[in-house]
């Protein structure tokens, strides 16, 4: 049962490409951050993007979520070219992004945080003329979504600052999951968290995937990547060096491709970096 918060489109069957980036190039002065990089995200999968510092993974993600406009190349959403000039435009097309630095307002409660910037008003004149918020509906729907995501939190109207770090990040992830219609991008969502707290967030990522939303996960943490990713895209020197799965390659093999010690299936010329 979906709530009427989001206008959910029917998600494409598993395996169809939802988001595609072709030949993305981005230069900052003399530095080429991305050099004809590619990416494909299929429906119903968690795609991890890994790479050493400076390999271009953050720039690629910023292009996909609208924070950076590429110099060359194109991004296709459901096969149609899109041009994001701001994160807001990407969001309007159903792409939500979770940032590593816990983008929540700690003094406000969980339900308020989930609906922050997209508050629900009362139906009828109270809402249209007096701009009256429908707090009960927001609380109810927030609780419903949290139950659907199987993410356990204290009372939905308790302040976010009373939560653990993992639960706080859970609120940020849940907000993205609730409002995303096409896909969710997560930029190092576990970077600030401890082991147990990371586990909560990784579970949440799996639940989101199982509900049908594909996820792009950027992470430095190889064990986390191997725990949740269906496919792993390895970036090196601004390009895609390989796409593999946790079954095909071991962690040390992935690291070897990342650093240039081993060749991936799309070799990148050049020495380690």
């Amino acid at each position, binding site marked *: 049962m979906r709530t009427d918060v989001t206008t959910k489109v029917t998600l494409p069957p598993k395996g169809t490409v939802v988001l595609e980036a072709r030949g993305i190039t981005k230069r900052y002065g003399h530095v080429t951050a991305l050099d004809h990089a590619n990416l494909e995200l299929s429906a119903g999968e968690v795609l991890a993007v890994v790479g050493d510092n400076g390999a271009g993974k953050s720039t690629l993600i910023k292009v996909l979520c609208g924070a950076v406009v590429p110099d060359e190349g194109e991004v296709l959403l459901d096969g149609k070219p899109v041009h994001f000039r701001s994160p807001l435009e990407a969001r309007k097309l159903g792409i939500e992004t979770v940032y590593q630095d816990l983008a929540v307002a700690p003094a*406000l409660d969980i339900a*308020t945080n989930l609906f922050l*910037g997209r508050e629900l008003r009362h139906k009828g004149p109270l809402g249209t003329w007096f701009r009256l*918020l429908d707090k009960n509906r927001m609380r109810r729907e927030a609780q419903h979504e949290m139950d659907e995501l199987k993410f356990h939190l204290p009372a939905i109207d308790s302040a976010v600052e009373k939560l653990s770090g993992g639960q706080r990040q859970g609120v940020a992830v849940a907000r993205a999951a609730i409002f995303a219609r096409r896909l969710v991008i997560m930029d190092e969502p576990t970077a600030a968290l401890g082991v147990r707290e990371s586990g909560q967030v990784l579970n949440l990522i799996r639940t989101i995937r199982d509900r049908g939303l594909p996820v792009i996960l950027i992470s430095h943490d190889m064990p986390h990547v191997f725990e949740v990713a269906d496919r792993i895209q390895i970036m090196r020197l601004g390009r895609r060096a390989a796409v593999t799965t946790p079954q095909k390659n071991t962690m040390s093999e992935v690291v070897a491709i990342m650093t240039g010690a081993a060749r991936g299936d799309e070799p990148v010329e050049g020495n380690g970096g």
Partner: protein
Amino acid sequence: MSTSSLAASKRNGSALARLITTPTFGPLIVLIVFCAVFSFATKTFWATGNLSLVVQQSVIVGTLAIGQTMIILTAGIDLANGGIAVLGTILAGRLVAEQQNPVLSLLFALFICTVFGLTAGLLVSRLMLPPFIVTLGLLGIVTAITRLVAQGGAFPVTDDLLSWTGNAFAVGDTSITYGMIVMFVLYLLVWYLLTHTAWGRHVYAIGNNREAARLVGIPVQARLLSVYTFAGLLYGIGAWLALGRIPNADPNALQSANLDSITAVVIGGTSLFGGRGSLWGTLIGTLIVAVLRNGLTLTGIDPLWQDLITGILVISAVALDQISRKKQR
């Protein structure tokens, strides 16, 4: 639905804890204690005439403190609000003294006060200047303009419209001024906006975590601009209330109003760091200071003690806020 029933039971169990941790609870206790102490210390404190006077004395600072609360909730501060209100009184007073239409004169004063709020808002939101510096500078500017407009004089107000807020009607033997009604209506209005509209949520969110507010798509600049502009309008209304209280537009009036409004907000439990607090707390904070002044005067204690006790209250309130914020980390 095991999670929601669990959540519900947790909610009920902590009803008392919630009451105590409500930001207005502490200030309310302080107000009740002061009232109790003064009712034992003097016979006249509970006299209806005296209580009415206490509220009348709080009306100007109480109204300025509404704007101050909104601004402090966004993690800003306004050092110019008293100065802007004084300019409002001088503008209206002088225009009416020069036989201008009273309605237009009052509207002009309200407009100019709003423009100063807008100016502060533009500088804070667009140029990202610190509110402390912006409003400190504006205080100097409005004070200078006030003196230029006043040309060394004061303007006694005899016009009915300008002094209307000082008119009173009696309920039983309690005298209620229209100014009190105006203030309470403004408190109700802004309370509604802050707690029951998306705009209010955004004000809290901006003060609480500005970067998060931006990332979730809140138009931070527009919200800040609206807060400062609206506050400017409220300072204009404060000017009208001041003319009702003392029907004489005096450039030397309301010298301490800037800081008094901050005192009221802080004693009322709103955090100077932004994002936490309540408007009713500010009203209680205003009343605490007014009751203290009134009570000490009635008991014949040296007025110097008023400032000393107010100072202690301010520091205690900020210290409590700081300690509770540390605990939340």
